[in-house]
């Protein structure tokens, strides 16, 4: 990060990200600005998963739960504004600052409770339990008839309101998402180098040793789990705004799988990997069907996952470093 080549690279990447809307407008592909926002949002969510998965070694298969809780906080608050009703004695709100903050706090709280329970175990138990708890929340939201049950909540009032910024404008919204992404990237760099980050990485490498060194391992893992949950909640809140719609699908277990794929695809345990993975995943999702259509395999247009599944297996079996790892290997870098 400190050496010159990296500095040039980072500056160029940030500039490119800032110019995305202008370039897309010039090309007449404005509708892709929404995809760019989604990349920023999912990049944020995948990075938060990477904190516990790649750095903390916690294979959480329920990360979409926090994404969904954050989204539902925004959706429910907006629903009550539209409905004019109150929730537990409080009015709903359309204010971005308040509802996003609440989304962060509530998903952090949920992550705290579920994390404290899940972290009583490790290994394959942890995978199954995080998956099961996420499924529990999924069914909880499905059962909430008031908020649409299976169908979810449509935000009839549109996106949240932010002073000075018009979130309903796609370009402004993209910049808001990008700001959050860049801010968390910066925070993330600091975090993984800090004492806390070192402890987390050491726990991943050798938990027994950490305990013997006098470290209360579970406390640090839980702290990381809560941070990851909070950031995923923010990403969920942003995605609810992007789509102006929230449904139990946000918490579906395949969504947790998607987040994991993004992390792996981009490069687990690297700083920028999950963002690249999110971009690759979402672009594949958008363009793989078109590609099949154009190349004379229209059958696969709708069924692109039949190619994506085996692709994932191949990446797992043969390209563990993901895109970042492969790229670095080609450059002859040594990833740390």
């Amino acid at each position, binding site marked *: 990060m400190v050496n010159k080549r990296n500095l040039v690279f980072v500056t160029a990447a940030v500039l490119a990200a800032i110019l995305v809307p202008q370039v897309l407008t010039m090309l007449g592909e404005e509708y892709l600005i929404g995809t760019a926002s989604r990349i920023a949002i999912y990049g944020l969510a995948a990075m938060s998963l990477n904190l516990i998965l790649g750095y903390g070694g916690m294979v959480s298969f329920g990360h979409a739960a926090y994404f969904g809780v954050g989204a539902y906080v925004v959706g429910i608050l907006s629903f009550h504004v539209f409905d004019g009703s109150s929730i537990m004695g409080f009015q709903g709100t359309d204010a971005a600052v308040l509802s996003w903050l609440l989304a962060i706090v509530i998903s952090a709280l949920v992550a705290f409770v579920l994390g404290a329970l899940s972290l009583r175990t490790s290994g394959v138990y942890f995978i199954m339990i995080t998956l099961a708890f996420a499924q529990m929340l999924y069914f909880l939201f499905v059962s909430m008839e008031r908020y649409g049950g299976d169908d979810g909540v449509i935000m009839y009032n549109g996106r949240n309101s932010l002073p000075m910024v018009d979130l309903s404008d796609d370009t402004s919204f993209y910049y808001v998402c990008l700001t959050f992404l860049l801010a968390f990237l910066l925070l993330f760099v600091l975090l993984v*180098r800090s004492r806390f980050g070192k*402890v987390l990485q050491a726990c991943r490498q050798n938990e027994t040793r950490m305990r013997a060194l006098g470290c209360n391992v579970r406390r640090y893992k839980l*702290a990381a789990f809560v941070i990851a949950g909070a950031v995923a909640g923010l990403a969920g809140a942003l995605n609810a705004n992007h789509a102006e719609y929230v449904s139990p699908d946000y918490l579906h277990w395949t969504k947790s799988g998607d987040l994991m794929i993004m992390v792996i695809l981009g490069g687990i345990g690297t700083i920028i990997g999950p963002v690249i993975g999110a971009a690759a995943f979402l672009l594949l999702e958008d363009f793989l069907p078109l590609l099949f259509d154009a190349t004379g395999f229209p059958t696969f247009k709708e069924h692109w996952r039949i190619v994506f599944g085996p692709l994932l297996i191949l990446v797992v079996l043969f390209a563990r470093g993901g895109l970042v790892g492969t790229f670095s290997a080609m450059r002859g870098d040594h990833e740390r």
Partner: protein
Amino acid sequence: MSAEPLLRIDGLYKSFGALAASNDVCIDIAPGEIHAVIGPNGAGKTTLVAQICGQLQPDAGTVHFDGRDITLLQQDKRPALGLVRSFQITSIFPDFTALENVAMAVQLNAGHSFHFFADAGRDTSLNEPAMGYLKTVGLQASAGTPAFALAHGQQRQLELAMALALKPKMLVLDEPMAGMGPDETAHVISLLNELKGSVTMLLVEHDMDAVFALADRISVLVYGKIIATGLPEEIRNNAAVREAYLGSEDDADA
């Protein structure tokens, strides 16, 4: 035995099914002493270490450290009291450099690690002491080498440096010489000799030369029972010990 013992193990009992891995084990270790525990494979040495360090809980009996009953104290709370262990099978952080490994130990010794922003890798309050401990064990030249790339003997030395970084009152060393060459063994023996007096040690070791070179007193563990405790000469000349253990040294070294 004039002073109050630093570690007092009293009536420790632990069984796995029908097998009693610790059977009424009693050991007192005075401050400054190097106390060796020897015994054939399967005698229950590692089980004993695990109970002293809180990895396993005994079925009966007590462990007192520095006047405090720690029998049921959680494993990760023990190093703060000054009770620190090393592992029989090398246990380090393979992706960290040697320096980072020791710096982690220094960091954990310095209190909680809920510091989220400052770069720990550039923290001289961690790196300088860590470098000092690497020097003590003779690894300063390899400070920047990732731990997985160190030779086996060097990894054992690294492990010792990490243990020292916790500023222990007492070190529980589970076969520190396992897998070391003769030169490295000699180096570690002289290092432990230098520490003698300032750090109390419980030494579990197969290498009899090392044991007799270092130990003030020796306890012999056979089938979970202490069959003898005494000065090295006493143990050497003890008939029961010779029969149970030293007499069949070929097996014991296997």
